[in-house]
């Protein structure tokens, strides 16, 4: 029983427990905390796997940004963020079913692993000291993988813009389309009205405007 063994055991149990908490707790805040715990556990496992940089990123991005974002949204929604009335009752069957499913899967996995007559574990080999270091990953990211890296930044920007665009909706101008049928919407779209409502200013109008402005 080395330190590493213990570390792995603790980290994996923490990750599993956190995951369980995420999906099982009624309050979304608790779920978020569970997610946080899992993330920390996985970060620890990353350390075990010689992925120091990733562990850091995991903590920074997930714990620092994603979970915080979740919490913000939960705060924004207030009490509505929780499960509605009667949801728990409705979901009971599903919960029991899911529990049973998970137990079944666990049993199957255990069966597969233990019953294999000559189950041989594949140990990790010796590790390169450079493996997973910030320098090594940085070399890759700014070297051969620079294009996807830059694309990832683009993706993030697009995501931010998109998130703003989606979240910024104006409920008071929500358009009720004429017909519920998507086909009808396609053929009788609102474009006609738009054409009529926003004609381009004519030359005379422009001139009048300029004159009036002057």
């Amino acid at each position, binding site marked *: 029983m080395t330190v590493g063994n213990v570390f792995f055991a603790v980290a994996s149990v923490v990750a599993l427990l956190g995951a369980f908490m995420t999906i099982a707790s009624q309050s979304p805040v608790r779920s978020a905390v569970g997610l946080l715990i899992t993330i920390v556990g996985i970060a620890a496992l990353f350390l075990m796997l010689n992925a120091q940089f990733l562990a850091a990123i*995991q903590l920074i991005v997930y714990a620092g940004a994603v979970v915080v974002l979740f919490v913000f949204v939960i705060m924004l929604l207030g009490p509505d963020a929780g499960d509605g009335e009667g949801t728990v009752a409705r979901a009971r069957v599903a919960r029991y079913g899911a529990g049973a499913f998970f137990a079944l899967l666990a049993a199957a996995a255990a069966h597969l692993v233990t019953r294999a007559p000559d189950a041989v574990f594949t140990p990790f080999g010796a*590790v390169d000291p450079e493996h997973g270091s910030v320098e090594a990953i940085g070399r890759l990211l700014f070297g051969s993988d620079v294009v996807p890296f830059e694309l990832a930044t683009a993706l993030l920007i*697009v995501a931010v813009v998109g998130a703003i665009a989606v979240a910024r909706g104006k409920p008071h101008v929500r358009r009720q389309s004429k017909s519920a049928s998507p086909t009808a919407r396609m053929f009788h779209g609102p474009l006609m009205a738009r054409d009529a409502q926003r004609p381009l200013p004519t030359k005379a109008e422009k001139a009048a405007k300029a004159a009036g402005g002057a």
Partner: protein
Amino acid sequence: MSSLGYVIEQYIMLSGALFTLGCIGFLVRRNVLVQLMSIELMLNSVNLTLVAYNRMHTGDLNGQVFAFFIIAVAAAEVAVGLAIVLAFYRLKSSVQSDEADQLRH
């Protein structure tokens, strides 16, 4: 059990368990927020697998780089996903995914 933490199979099984939990969470919970978190769980479990396999092949770091990109994508996804949750909440005054059944009509 001295190999605890030093063989790939354990990481795979752990990751499988996390993935299954995430899956169950996504399927069972009706709360969109929790569903999103479940998706995060699944992504994390995949990351764990990638990194674990990468540990076996010490010659390159492609697995870790891939995991890095997954984290970036997950961040973007959460941002957009939460924005959609907000928009959805505005539409339905609820975050229960049962309400999101417009696809049917």
